[in-house]
């Protein structure tokens, strides 16, 4: 009888472990999955870059965005040191899109604006003045050469050189690179 009780206890433990794992996975998937149809509701939740009609947002599924952007000028695949999947840098005229693989799916991990042929959704581009940046994003600390603003899972980094914008980057907000 006691043996049976012990066996049952152990079976329950195993089931708990398995179930717990399944639950954890589900939670992970739920957090990673984009929510179709909520694009409008999320419009202000994250910083995003628009190229024509294509909205590029950190953490978004890369495939539909890359398809909509068309063929890049070049791409550079950087295999993850050990983990599965490739980090890829896609170069388009005026900007680059960076992707990484999470749970077998490519996602956007960064956007770097390279010249003044493209601009942020707020109208700032490479070469914009400090005043333009302040008008779009608010005041910049005296003496600061960059402005970092986090919205949702995206950090928008604007770097100034001699009071003009020299780099604009959309990055992952948790500081991972």
């Amino acid at each position, binding site marked *: 009888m006691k043996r049976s009780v012990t066996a049952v206890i152990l079976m329950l433990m195993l089931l708990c472990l398995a179930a*717990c794992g399944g639950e954890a996975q589900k939670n992970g998937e739920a957090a990673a999955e984009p929510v179709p149809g909520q694009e409008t509701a999320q419009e202000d939740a994250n910083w995003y870059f628009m190229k024509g009609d294509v909205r590029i947002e950190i953490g978004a599924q890369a495939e539909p965005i890359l398809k909509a952007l068309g063929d890049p000028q070049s791409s550079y695949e950087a295999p993850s*040191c050990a983990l599965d999947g490739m980090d890829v840098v896609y170069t388009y005229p005026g900007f680059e899109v960076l992707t990484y693989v999470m749970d077998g799916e490519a996602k956007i991990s960064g956007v770097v604006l390279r010249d003044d042929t493209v601009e942020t959704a707020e109208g700032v581009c490479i070469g914009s003045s400090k005043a333009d940046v302040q008008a779009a994003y608010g005041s910049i600390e005296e003496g600061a050469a960059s402005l970092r603003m986090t919205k949702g899972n995206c950090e928008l980094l604007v770097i100034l050189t001699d009071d003009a914008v020299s780099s604009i980057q959309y990055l992952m907000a948790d500081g991972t690179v």
Partner: protein
Amino acid sequence: MMRMKWLRPLLFAFWLILTLFLLQRLLMPKYIHENEEGVLAGEYYDDAGGNDVLFIGDCEVYSNFSPITLWEDYGITSVIRGTPQQMIWQSYYMLEDTLRFETPRAVVFNVYAMRYDRPQNEAYNRLALDGMRWSKVKADAVRASMKEEESFASYVFPLLRFHSRFSELNADDFRYMFRSEPLSHNGYVMRVDTKPVTVLPQPVPLADYRFSETDWRYLDMIRDSCRAHDITLILIKSPSCYPHWYEEWDSQIADYAEENGLIYINFLDHQEETGIDYTTDTFDAGQHLNLAGAEKASAWFGKILAEQSGVSDRRSDPAMASRWEEKIAFYGKMKASQEKQLEETGTVKSFR
């Protein structure tokens, strides 16, 4: 009768612990056919002892230097304790852990890790830490490495972390519950295939090129530990085209080396002398060297080690020579296996 009453709970506790132990062994990733570099941290203990040179750092050390070449060309005994995206605090603790087993004459630290000021990825922490043997050093390494969402308990009892693998178990999990397949050659991970550099992304400007206080503190700790053990510390920037190594970073390391009387070698400044050709000597378009590249880098660096770090040629030691003969045989076998795969399929699908 009374004795039996005590015995039963004890037996139950023993059985429970044994069951949990077996479950843990079963559920932990085996790193045999995927994420193979996960075995590196644990493989060191098979190679521990008698190593005159220790390499610490990320994939730029375990892919780019061949201890076999150092032995064959110079009689230098060396071991690499590299793990994917190894953080500088992990490099420090790898050094401290190594000092529990042996005291090398020289430590070579790849400074690329200085770019990270905080833990980046739990998966990489696991690859660096789960294979380390338990000691106070490992406990400190875990505390230094954990991201906010991680728990110390999950490193003590990895079952807490990996129980969700229950539904993913495969034949490897049963076959390698109590053993592994060797992957590295004293920490070197071999790749014989070639993917040339054709294009490189432009470097992305940074808002601040200064390394963090945390990085400097750990670099000081590595320096101090080496000094305390009379070890020559050599800083290197390993040969790699991507990710970009900024001049602003390079000058900070050069200044630190000068202030502290250390050797600093940026391999990117010595491409001609090393003979590394990024159209033939890399397997992933310039991020890591393939076997040909690693042997070139090692052949060139071995001369510096021999001349400037006080390591001696140990090929006349019969016991050591015999030990390294075995390593050379394994090296040759893996090289042949990979070349065969490359010839038959055009790619290297398996390291072994």
